[in-house]
């Protein structure tokens, strides 16, 4: 079964609002990563949080990790129309750098 299930499946907000996406997983992880995919394009790495970290920031992105609940969240603050994309969490194990991706959240930011 897939690891890294995202919630919600789709999110529609207005420009300037914050967007929060959640990710759950089932087995232990080495790290958890978030990626963005614009329609019909490849994925772009956003941020990585290691299993011994609880929170990381990168620009308007904030990622939290709760290993006791096996969940992570991605917060995009002050969203822009250009943030419209699909967002995926990916569970990183220790085996050859393989990542297991969730189903993704489709974010639409209306101008």
């Amino acid at each position: 079964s897939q690891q890294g299930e995202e919630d919600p499946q789709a999110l529609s907000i207005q420009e300037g609002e914050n967007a929060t996406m959640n990710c759950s997983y089932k087995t232990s992880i080495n790290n958890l990563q978030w990626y963005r995919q614009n329609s019909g394009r490849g994925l772009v790495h956003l941020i990585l949080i290691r299993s011994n970290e609880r929170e990381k920031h990168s620009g308007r992105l904030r990622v939290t990790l709760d290993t006791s609940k096996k969940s992570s969240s991605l917060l995009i603050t002050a969203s822009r129309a250009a943030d419209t994309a699909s967002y995926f969490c990916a569970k990183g194990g220790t085996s050859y750098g393989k990542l297991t991706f969730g189903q993704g959240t489709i974010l639409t930011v209306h101008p």
Partner: protein
Amino acid sequence: SQTIHQWPATLVQPVGSPLSLECTVEGTSNPNLYWYRQAAGRGLQLLFYSVGIGQISSEVPQNLSASRPQDRQFILSSKKLLLSDSGFYLCACTNTGRIGYTFGSGTRLTVV
């Protein structure tokens, strides 16, 4: 920085025809390489990965195969395509000490 070149961008092939998708990497050496497939509106499924020349591991049994003839070249092949092989194919790489994957721009394969 490392970049991935993937081609073609789109491909329409009849059922039963062969397939060859190529991915080349620049800006790094001895990368780990991966082929993923993405069905419409869904997540990515890992198909193959390689940690070195000639070393290929398959994640799911299927109609596809992969090869790595050179350090920075990764090829996805099929002898006879099925309708179910349609999808968006993505090549990715990572390397020791590097955070995250670098993805190619993908190939949209439609089998008709």
